[in-house]
C-alpha cells in the first residue's frame, strides 16, 4: 500500500468515521439552549436600549433646549419662566423636575428611563409628571414650543403624502416613511428585507425587552367536515376584519412563515374587494356561485358573496370619532406610534369639516389629548397628534371608559359615533382579561357607539384581545404594518370602515341531504354561531360597512361523488326528505343601524354551474387555498402552491389597487419559505 493511498485514506476515512460518530442531538437540550439564547438576546436588548437611549441631561440641557426652541413671542411671555428655571436649577428638587420635564414636554420620542427599563411595571413617569407640571405655571410655559411646531406642519398642507410627512419636524415620524409596502412590481423579497431592517433599525422593539414575542392569536381548530344528514344547518356571523391578512404579510415579508393560529382564512378572503352585483333597495345583495373545487374535481365550492350598498359620500351622516391611542412605552418603536401619527394624518384629509375628532391617550393613566374638535381645524388636531409620546404602562380599560364617555358627549341626532382604538395590543394593567373587557364593551355597544381596533407593530401583538374587542364592540379589527396598509384601511375603505349599513349580519345555510352528502365551511372558525342564535336578535354578530363585500365559501361533496369521505350508515335508513335538486337554502339576518329587530333575506342555492367559473369567486377560492396551505392542507390533496399561484394569477382581474398582485407575490414568498 503506497504512502499516497494511506494519506488519502487517513482524512476521508476519518471524516466518515467522524460523521458516523456524531451523536444525534438531544431535542430537549436543543430547545433549552435555544430558549436560553433568546432570553439572553432579549436581556441584552434591554440593556442596549437603556444605554443608547437614556437621556443624560445635565443641569443645562433643560434650559438650552428651551432657549433653542423658544420663539421671540413665546420668549417674551416666558421671561419669568426663565428666571424661575434658574431658581429650579439652583435647587435639587427643581433640577429633578427639569431633567425630566423637557423629555416629557417636547415630544421627544424617547420615554423616560423608568419606562424603558420596566415596561411591565406600573410606573408611569410621563403622565404623572405632566400632572405635576401643568399646575406649575412656569413649567407649563415649556409647552409653548410644542405648539409652535404646528404652523410648520400647516405650511405644507399639501395633499401630497410625501410632503406632508416630511413637513413634520419630529424625526421619529420620518422613519416609517420607508415602511411603505413593497410595490407589487418590485422584487418583494428585496423590499421585504429592506422592510425588516428598516423596521428594526431605528430602535429595537421596546416591547421585546422583558418578554420577546408575547404575541397571542385568536383562532379555533379548522372547521371539520360535516355530514349533511347529521347536521344539515350551518350558522355563522360575517367577519369583515382584515387583521389576519396583514399579519401574515408582515410575517412573510420578514422571511418567516406565519404562526398557524394567525391564519384566519375568512379574514384573508375578505381582505380583498370583490366586484359582486350591487344591491338594489336592500342594504346588501347576496350572490351565490357554485363551481368545481380547484383542489378536488369531485367536490364543489359554494361561494356566497355579499355586496353592501355604497351610499354617496354627501349623504353620509356626520361622524364623531374618538381616537383612543395607546401611548404606553411599548408603542415607541417606528412601526407603532410614528406610523400611527402618519396614518391618522392620511385619514384626516378624508374627513369632512363637520365631522368631529377627539383624542384620548392611555398609558398608566388616561388623559384627553384633544377635546372634541371639528375636522376642519387641522392645525389643532395635527398638533395634538404630534404631541403624543410613548411612555409608561398600559391601562386599556381606563382609556376605553374615557373614550366612550367622550363619544357620548359628542353625540347628536343622526351622527355615527365610533371609538377607534390604536394599540399594539398591550393591556398590561388593570382589566387585561379579554373576557372582562368584553363584558364592558358589550355593555357599551348597546349605546350605539361603534368600536374599531387598529393593531400596530409586532412582537407583542395581542391579537386575541383585539379580536375580542372588535367583535364585541360592533367594529372591525385591522392590523396596520405599513403606510400603504393605513392608506387601504383608513383612506380607500374609509367610508366602509366608518359607516355601518347593516348590524349583526348572520348567515345560515341549510343543505339538502338528497343532493349534498358532506360540507365544510372554509374559515369562520371564530365566528361560529349556534343554530338557535340565528333567530335570536340578542345574539351579536358582525357588522357590514358601506360598500364592503363579505365572502364565505363552503366545500360540498355531492351525493354519489367518489370524494365522499364518510360511509353511509348501515342501520339508519337514508332519509330523503325532499326530491328537490337544490343544493340548499341560504338565510341572512341583519339589522339596520339603530334598529333592534332583525330582517330576513332568503334565497336558494342553485345547482352546479358548469360554465366558466366567475372570476371574483375563483380569486376568492385561490385565497381560500392559500390560507389552507398556510394552516392545514388536509383537504387539498396534491394541490399545492403552484396551483394556488396559477389560480390567483388567472383571476386577478382589474385589480386597481394592486392588492391581488401582492397576494400572488406573498404566495410565492410563502412557497419558497415552506420548502
Amino acid at each position, binding site marked *: 500500500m503506497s504512502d499516497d493511498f494511506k494519506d488519502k485514506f487517513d482524512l476521508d476515512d476519518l471524516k466518515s468515521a467522524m460523521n458516523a460518530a456524531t451523536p444525534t442531538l438531544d431535542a430537549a437540550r436543543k430547545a433549552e439552549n435555544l430558549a*436560553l439564547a433568546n432570553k439572553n*438576546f432579549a436581556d441584552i436588548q434591554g440593556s442596549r436600549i437603556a444605554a443608547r437611549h437614556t437621556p443624560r441631561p445635565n443641569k443645562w440641557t433643560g434650559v438650552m433646549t428651551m432657549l433653542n426652541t423658544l420663539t421671540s413671542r413665546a420668549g417674551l411671555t416666558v421671561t419669568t419662566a426663565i428666571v424661575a428655571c434658574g431658581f429650579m436649577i439652583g435647587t435639587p428638587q427643581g433640577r429633578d423636575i427639569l431633567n425630566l420635564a423637557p423629555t416629557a414636554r417636547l415630544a421627544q420620542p424617547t420615554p423616560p428611563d423608568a419606562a424603558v427599563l420596566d415596561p411591565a411595571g406600573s410606573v408611569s413617569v410621563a403622565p404623572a409628571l405632566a400632572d405635576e407640571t401643568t399646575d406649575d405655571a412656569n413649567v407649563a410655559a415649556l409647552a409653548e414650543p410644542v405648539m409652535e411646531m404646528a404652523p410648520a406642519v400647516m405650511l405644507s398642507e399639501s395633499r401630497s403624502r410625501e410632503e406632508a410627512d416630511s413637513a413634520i419636524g419630529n424625526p421619529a415620524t420620518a422613519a416609517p416613511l420607508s415602511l411603505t409596502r413593497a410595490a407589487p412590481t418590485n422584487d418583494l423579497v428585496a423590499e421585504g428585507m429592506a422592510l425588516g431592517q428598516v423596521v428594526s433599525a431605528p430602535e429595537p422593539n421596546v416591547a421585546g425587552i422583558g418578554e420577546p414575542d408575547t404575541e397571542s392569536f385568536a383562532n379555533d381548530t379548522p372547521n371539520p367536515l360535516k355530514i349533511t344528514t347529521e347536521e344539515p344547518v350551518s350558522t355563522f356571523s360575517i367577519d369583515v376584519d382584515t387583521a389576519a391578512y396583514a399579519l401574515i404579510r408582515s410575517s412573510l415579508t420578514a422571511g418567516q412563515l406565519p404562526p398557524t393560529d394567525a391564519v384566519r382564512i375568512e379574514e384573508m378572503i375578505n381582505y380583498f374587494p370583490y366586484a359582486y352585483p350591487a344591491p338594489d333597495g336592500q342594504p346588501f345583495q347576496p350572490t351565490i356561485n357554485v363551481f368545481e373545487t380547484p383542489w378536488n374535481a369531485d367536490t364543489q365550492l359554494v361561494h356566497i358573496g355579499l355586496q353592501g350598498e355604497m351610499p354617496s359620500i354627501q349623504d353620509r351622516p356626520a361622524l364623531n370619532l374618538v381616537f383612543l391611542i395607546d401611548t404606553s412605552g411599548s408603542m415607541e418603536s417606528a412601526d407603532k406610534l410614528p406610523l400611527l401619527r402618519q396614518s391618522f394624518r392620511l385619514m384626516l384629509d378624508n374627513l369632512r369639516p363637520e365631522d368631529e375628532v377627539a383624542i384620548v391617550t392611555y398609558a398608566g393613566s388616561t388623559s384627553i389629548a384633544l377635546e372634541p374638535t371639528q375636522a376642519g381645524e387641522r392645525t389643532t388636531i395635527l398638533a395634538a397628534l404630534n404631541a403624543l409620546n410613548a411612555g409608561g404602562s398600559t391601562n386599556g380599560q381606563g382609556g376605553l371608559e374615557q373614550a366612550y364617555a367622550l363619544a357620548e358627549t359628542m353625540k347628536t341626532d343622526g351622527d355615527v359615533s365610533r371609538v377607534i382604538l390604536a394599540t399594539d395590543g398591550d393591556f398590561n394593567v388593570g382589566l387585561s382579561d379579554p373576557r372582562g373587557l368584553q363584558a364592558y364593551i358589550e355593555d357599551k355597544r348597546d349605546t350605539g357607539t361603534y368600536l374599531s381596533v387598529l393593531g400596530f407593530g409586532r412582537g407583542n401583538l395581542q391579537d386575541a384581545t383585539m379580536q375580542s374587542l372588535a367583535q364585541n364592540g360592533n367594529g372591525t379589527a385591522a392590523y396596520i404594518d405599513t403606510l400603504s396598509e393605513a392608506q387601504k384601511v383608513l383612506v380607500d375603505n374609509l367610508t366602509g370602515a366608518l359607516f355601518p349599513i347593516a348590524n349583526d349580519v348572520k348567515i345560515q345555510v341549510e343543505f339538502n341531504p338528497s343532493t349534498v352528502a358532506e360540507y365544510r365551511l372554509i374559515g369562520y372558525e371564530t365566528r361560529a354561531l349556534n343554530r338557535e342564535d340565528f333567530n335570536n336578535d340578542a345574539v351579536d354578530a358582525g357588522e357590514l360597512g358601506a360598500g364592503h363585500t363579505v365572502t364565505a365559501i363552503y366545500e360540498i361533496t355531492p351525493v354519489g361523488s367518489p370524494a365522499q369521505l364518510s360511509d353511509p350508515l348501515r342501520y339508519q335508513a337514508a332519509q330523503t326528505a325532499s326530491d328537490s335538486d337544490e343544493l340548499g337554502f341560504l338565510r341572512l339576518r341583519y339589522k339596520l343601524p339603530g334598529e333592534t329587530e332583525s330582517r330576513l333575506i332568503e334565497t336558494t342555492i342553485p345547482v352546479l354551474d358548469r360554465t366558466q367559473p366567475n372570476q371574483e369567486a375563483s380569486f376568492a377560492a385561490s385565497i381560500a387555498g392559500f390560507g389552507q396551505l398556510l394552516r392545514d392542507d388536509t383537504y387539498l390533496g396534491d394541490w399545492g402552491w403552484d396551483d394556488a399561484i396559477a389560480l390567483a394569477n388567472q383571476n386577478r382581474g382589474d385589480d386597481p389597487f394592486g392588492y391581488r398582485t401582492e397576494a400572488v407575490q406573498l404566495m410565492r414568498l410563502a412557497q419558497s419559505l415552506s420548502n
Partner: protein
Amino acid sequence: MRMTVSDEDMALAAQNGDGQAFASLIARQYDRLFRLCFRLTGSKHEAEDLTQDICAALPAKLSSYKRQSKVTTWLYRVAVNAAHDRRRKQATYGRASDGWGDWELNRQAVIEENQTRADWLTIAMGSLPVDLRDTLALVLDDMTHADAGDILGISEGTVSWRLSEARKHLKSLKEKEGVV
C-alpha cells in the same frame, strides 16, 4: 426561485435588535453548531455543554459580526474560541479540584463514554495536540483551508502545515498500532 432570507441578513437584523431574526438564525444554525462542537470536544456530553455556553454568550457576541464575513465563519470562530475557553477553564478546574470526588467521577464517566465506542477515532483525535485537533475538526466539517484559517486567525499556509502535521501524527499512530 429561492427567496429565503440569508443568514447574513438575519444576523444584521438581529444586531439591530430583531428578536425574531435572532431566534430564526440560531434555530437554523444550531444543528451545525452542535456538530462542530462534537468535532471539537469528541464527546456528546461535552458538546452539549459547549453548545449551551455558546448559545448563552452568542447574543453578546453578536456585535462582533461584520457584514463582510459569512455567518458560519463568524459562528465557527465563536465556537472555536468558546471551546478554547472551556478547555482552559477545565484545566483550572481540574487543578483546583484535584482530589475532589466529582471531578474524578466526571472524568471516569467521560472515559467510559469514550470506551463504549472505543474506535481509533477517539484515540486518534485525543492523541493530537489541541491546535492540530481544532484545525482538523474544521477541515473535516467541510471548511476550506482559507475559511479554517480565517476562523482560527492563522494563515492558510499554517492550516495546510497543521493538517500535514496531523496526518503525520495519525499515520504514525496507525503504524504503531499496526492498523491499516
